[in-house]
């Protein structure tokens, strides 16, 4: 867990490796270009292995801008290229607006809870084990 005090707020990025192989990266606080290098390093670290399964948990995040959105897009692309999967948990309307205004909500597999994001990755994994994988991104409703 990396933490940094800024005024009264604590900004942190917490990385949790689950038993099922899924890595959860949880952000809290306000994220912009100032903190982008540390997030970039974290995301590059967790997406570097084979078939990475990544959940970005933004439920404690109060703010992010297009610099951070760019890192999430970059991470999704790397994960896709490595035959892995990424999903994002985010439920704040003001943050969802950033995904919607950039047309990235569906492409980045944004759902409301960490549990839904994990279930989405597990479903993708099950499909691939069933021999139905074709290397494309998981389809969603």
């Amino acid at each position, binding site marked *: 867990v990396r933490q940094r005090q800024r005024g009264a707020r604590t900004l942190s990025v917490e990385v949790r490796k689950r038993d099922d192989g899924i890595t959860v990266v949880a952000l809290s606080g306000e994220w912009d270009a100032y903190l982008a290098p540390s997030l970039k390093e974290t995301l590059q670290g967790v997406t570097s292995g084979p078939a990475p399964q990544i959940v970005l948990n933004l439920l404690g995040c109060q*703010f992010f*801008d297009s*610099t951070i959105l760019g890192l999430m897009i970059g991470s999704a692309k790397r994960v896709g290229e490595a035959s892995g999967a990424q999903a994002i948990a985010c439920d704040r309307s*003001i943050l969802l607006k*950033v995904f919607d205004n950039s*047309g*990235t909500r569906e492409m980045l597999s944004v759902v409301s809870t960490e549990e839904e994001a994990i279930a989405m990755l597990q479903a993708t994994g099950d499909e691939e084990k069933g021999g139905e994988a074709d290397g494309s991104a998981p389809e969603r409703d």
Partner: protein
Amino acid sequence: VRPMDLRQSAIELRIPCDPRFLSVARLTIAGVAARAEPEFSIDDIEDLKISVTEACTNVIDHAYPEECDEADRFITVHCRFERGGLTVEVSDSGRGFDPRTAADSGTELPKESGLGIPLMRNLMDEVEFGGGPEEGTRVKMHKRPAR
């Protein structure tokens, strides 16, 4: 204290061209917007915070060449209440940049950069770029409270 006509007021913030101060610009715009009449909603204020952050980030990324002295690198955020909303101008005295080359106008898979200007255009009612080489860049944005 006599209540003043906000239309006569302007608020200006000058910060170093450094990402550590992005949150200062956000705090300022949120504080200014919260004093507008008619009132902005929380969503409107968030739109302003994102747009000001994007405009300041563009200055940090593009405005000043490496060789520019640190003391000469700054960002000015100028706010004034007008036309029933808030006008915010983010300016610098750098080399100027062409928003047409920075904006992502494509409809294909989103790129990892160039997302800021389309976002500002979607969140603000008006976005206008001014300035040019040798005079810096000025981004003028206007937001009216959502009805």
